[in-house]
C-alpha cells in the first residue's frame, strides 16, 4: 500500500469504538398496496428484527436463500435504505453496545422513561440514519459497497478514470493529474493498470469490471466494505481471482468485510463468522467452523447439506427440504422455519396458516374452503362449503396426514357441521440462544445436528 493511499484520510476520519458496526434489532418492512385505492394491505417483512456485530478487521458472512432479506440488510448497513425500526450503529464501545442490547431486549411498550432517553441519546450519536451530517459523512467514507453485478454498478457512459476517481472528486481529495495518478495507484492495487484509464466498462470482462468496482470502493480508504454477492456473477476461475484479491486487500489494509452471499463454499472460504438468515430473521450465527461443523439450527444444517461441495462424498444424497419458503408478508409464528423443518416439535409455532397451507396441497380441499374466521394466529374456525370436506379435515388433523408435531400442538378440534374449530398451543417467537462461545441459534431444541 502506498503512502498516498494511506495518508489520504482526513484527520479523524477513521471509525472509532470497539466494533466496526453493530446492527441492533433492525427491521425493514415494505408496504404492499392492494385494491382500487392502493391502500396498504400488509407489509413484506424483508428484515424483521436482526442483531449482530461486526468486529474490526473480521469478515462476517451473511448467508441465506433469495428473499431471506440479506440484500436488504446489506443496503441498510450501507445506508442506502433507512430501516423501519432498530438500526445500524457505529463508534460504539462494548459497554454502550451491551446497554443497547439490554434496552432492545425489553419490548418497546415496556421500556421506562430512562431507557427511552438513553436510547434516544445513543441513537443521536451513533445510529447512522440519525447522526449529524458531519458524522454521517465520516461513516459514508468508511463504509463502501461492492455490488453483485459489476456491469450494472458502473455507469456505462463514464470512463474508468471518472468511475474510480469520482469518490476522490466528491470528497475533494484530488483533481487533475493528481487524481489520475491516484486512480492509477488504485487500479494497480486491484491488478489493473494505467492502460485501462480511458476505457468504458463494456470494454472489460466480468472479472475486470469487479476489480474496477473494488478500486472505486477502496478510493476513500474505507474501513468497512459491504460485499453484496461480489462473485456470484463470475465463473469459478475468475471468482478465485477476485476472492484472492479481496483477501489480500483485507490483510494489507485491515479491512472489515460484510460478505453477503448465497454460496456456502465461498462463505466458508472467506468468513470468520457467519450469520445465517431465514425469512428476515437470524437463524444462527457463530464462528465459521461452528456453523459448518456444529450447526445447531436445522435450517443451517439443511442449507449445508443441500449445497454440494467438491470435498464431500458424492455418493451421499443431498438433503432436501419439503415445501417452499412461506410468504414474507405473513411469516409463520414461533420459529419461522417450522413449516419445513424436518425435526419440528410441538413447541415450534404450529398455527392456523399451517392448516390452510396443508389444504392448498390437498386435492379439492382448498376450493371447498369458503371462509376462515380467526381469533388469533393459533385459533380459528374454518368454514367449508360442504360437510364432507370439514369431516375430511377433522379426520386428517387426527391422523398421520398432518405432521406428528402439529398434531401434538393441536389443543382443540371441534366440528360443527361444515365448520371446524381448531386451536393450537400459542407459542411466542423463538429467540436466539447461546450454544457456545459466540455461537447462537434460534431453535427450541438443543441438537447436535450431524446426528439428525
Amino acid at each position, binding site marked *: 500500500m502506498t503512502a498516498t493511499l494511506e495518508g489520504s484520510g482526513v484527520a479523524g476520519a477513521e471509525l472509532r469504538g470497539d466494533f466496526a458496526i453493530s446492527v441492533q434489532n433492525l427491521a425493514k418492512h415494505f408496504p404492499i398496496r392492494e385494491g382500487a385505492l392502493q391502500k396498504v394491505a400488509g407489509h413484506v417483512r424483508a428484515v424483521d428484527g436482526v442483531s449482530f456485530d461486526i468486529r474490526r478487521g473480521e469478515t462476517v458472512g451473511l448467508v441465506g436463500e433469495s428473499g431471506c432479506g440479506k440484500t436488504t440488510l446489506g443496503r441498510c448497513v450501507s445506508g442506502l435504505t433507512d430501516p423501519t425500526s432498530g438500526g445500524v450503529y457505529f463508534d460504539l464501545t462494548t459497554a454502550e453496545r451491551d446497554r443497547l442490547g439490554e434496552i432492545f431486549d425489553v419490548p418497546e411498550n415496556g421500556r421506562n422513561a430512562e431507557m427511552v432517553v438513553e436510547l434516544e441519546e445513543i441513537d443521536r450519536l451513533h445510529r447512522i440514519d440519525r447522526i449529524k451530517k458531519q458524522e454521517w459523512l465520516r461513516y*459514508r*467514507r468508511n*463504509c463502501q459497497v461492492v455490488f453483485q453485478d459489476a456491469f450494472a*454498478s458502473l455507469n456505462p457512459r463514464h470512463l474508468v*478514470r471518472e468511475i474510480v476517481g469520482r*469518490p476522490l472528486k466528491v470528497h475533494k481529495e484530488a483533481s487533475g493529474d493528481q487524481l489520475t495518478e491516484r486512480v492509477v495507484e488504485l487500479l494497480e492495487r486491484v491488478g489493473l493498470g494505467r492502460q485501462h484509464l480511458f*476505457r468504458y466498462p463494456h470494454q472489460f470482462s466480468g472479472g*475486470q469490471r469487479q476489480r474496477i468496482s473494488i478500486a472505486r470502493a477502496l478510493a476513500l480508504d474505507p474501513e468497512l466494505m459491504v460485499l453484496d454477492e461480489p462473485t456470484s456473477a463470475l465463473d469459478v476461475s475468475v471468482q478465485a481471482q477476485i476472492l484472492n484479491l479481496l483477501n489480500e486487500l483485507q490483510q494489507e489494509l485491515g479491512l472489515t468485510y460484510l460478505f453477503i452471499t448465497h454460496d456456502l463454499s465461498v462463505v466458508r472460504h472467506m468468513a470468520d463468522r457467519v450469520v445465517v438468515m431465514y425469512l428476515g430473521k437470524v437463524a444462527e450465527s457463530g464462528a465459521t467452523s461452528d456453523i459448518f461443523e456444529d450447526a445447531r439450527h436445522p435450517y443451517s444444517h439443511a442449507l449445508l447439506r443441500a449445497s454440494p461441495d467438491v470435498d464431500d462424498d458424492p455418493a451421499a444424497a443431498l438433503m432436501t427440504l419439503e415445501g417452499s419458503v412461506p410468504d414474507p408478508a405473513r411469516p409463520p409464528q414461533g420459529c419461522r422455519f417450522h413449516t419445513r423443518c424436518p425435526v419440528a416439535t410441538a413447541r415450534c409455532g404450529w398455527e392456523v396458516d399451517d392448516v390452510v397451507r396443508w389444504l392448498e396441497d390437498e386435492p379439492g380441499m382448498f376450493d371447498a374452503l369458503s371462509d376462515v374466521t380467526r381469533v388469533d394466529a393459533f385459533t380459528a374456525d374454518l368454514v367449508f362449503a360442504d360437510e364432507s370436506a370439514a369431516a375430511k379435515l377433522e379426520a386428517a388433523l387426527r391422523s398421520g396426514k398432518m405432521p406428528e408435531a402439529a398434531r401434538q400442538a393441536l389443543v382443540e378440534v371441534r366440528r360443527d357441521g361444515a365448520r371446524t374449530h381448531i386451536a393450537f398451543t400459542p407459542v411466542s417467537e423463538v429467540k436466539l440462544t447461546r450454544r457456545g462461545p459466540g455461537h447462537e441459534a434460534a431453535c427450541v431444541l438443543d441438537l447436535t445436528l450431524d446426528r439428525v
Partner: protein
Amino acid sequence: MAVETASRVSVAPLAGGLRTRLGRFGEISREVLANPTTLVGVILIVAMIAMAAFAPLLIEPNTPDPYQMPRDWGALNEPPGTPGHILGTTQQGGDVLYGVIWGARISLRLSIIVVSVTVLIGLVVGSLAGFLGGKLDEFLMRLVDVFLSIPELIFALAIAAVLGPSFGNIILALAAVFWVKYARIIRGQVISIKQNEYVDAARVIGDSGLRIYMKDVLPNSITPVVVQATLDMGNVVLIGATLSFIGLAEAGLAEWGVLVSQGQAGISAGRWWASTFPGLMVFLWALAFNLVGDGLRDILDPRTEAKR
C-alpha cells in the same frame, strides 16, 4: 496474485478520453451510415436542410416578405416544364418551385423551434416528476394524462383556432401539444435509471442528489428522447402542414400545407402539380426523419448498445 491480462476482448487502448468519446460518436455515426435505409434518410435530411439554408441562393427571394409566394399574374396554372416555372404555377400564379424551396425553410424553422422548446419543457417536467417523485409526480402525471387524452392534431387545431389563423400560432399550438410526450418519456426513463446499481454506487461514495442526477441519471435517460426528437422533427412538420392545409396559416404563405390546400381546387380540372409537389416535400421530410429516427432507435437500443 493472478492478474487478468489486457485480454483480446477489449479494443486497443486509445490515447485519451477525448478520442474515446469521439470514437463512440464515430461508431454510432458509422452504424447510422452502414444501414442503407438510414443512409437514405440522412441524405434526404442533408439535402433538404441545405435547400432550406441556401434558399435565397437557389431562388430569388420575394420582396418584401420572402415567405410569401410571389405572384406571376402572367402565368396562371402553368403546367410543369414551363420556362421559369419548372414545377408549374398555382391558380394565383405562384411558382410551385419557390414554394417547395422556401417551404423547406419554413418547415425547418418550425421543427427546430417546436422540438427544442418541447424537449426542454419535457425534460424539466419529466425530471422533476421522476426524480423527486411523490405528490409532485402524481400531479404532473395527471396533467400529462389530461393532455394526452385529446388527440394531438385535434388539440393543436383547437388551440390554433382559438389563437387565430397564423403560422406563428401554429408553432405555439404545436409546442403546447408536443411537450407532453417528452415529459412522459423522461419521467419513465428517470424512474428506471434511478433503480440502477450505479446510482446506488454514486450514493455510496457520498455524491449529492443533483450531481447524481446530472452525471448518472440524465445522460443515461436521454437516448429515447433523442430518438423521439428525431421522429418529431418530421412529425411536427407533418402536423404543422396539416393545420395549414386546414386553413390555419396565412393565405399566400410559401408553406407546403397551404400550397396543397390551394392546389386542391384545380385537381378536378387536371392540374395535379400544385398539390403534388409540396405534398411530396412534406412526405419526404417526414420520411427522412422517420428513417433516421427508426435507425437510431435500433442502434441506440440499450440491449445492443451494451455489447458495443
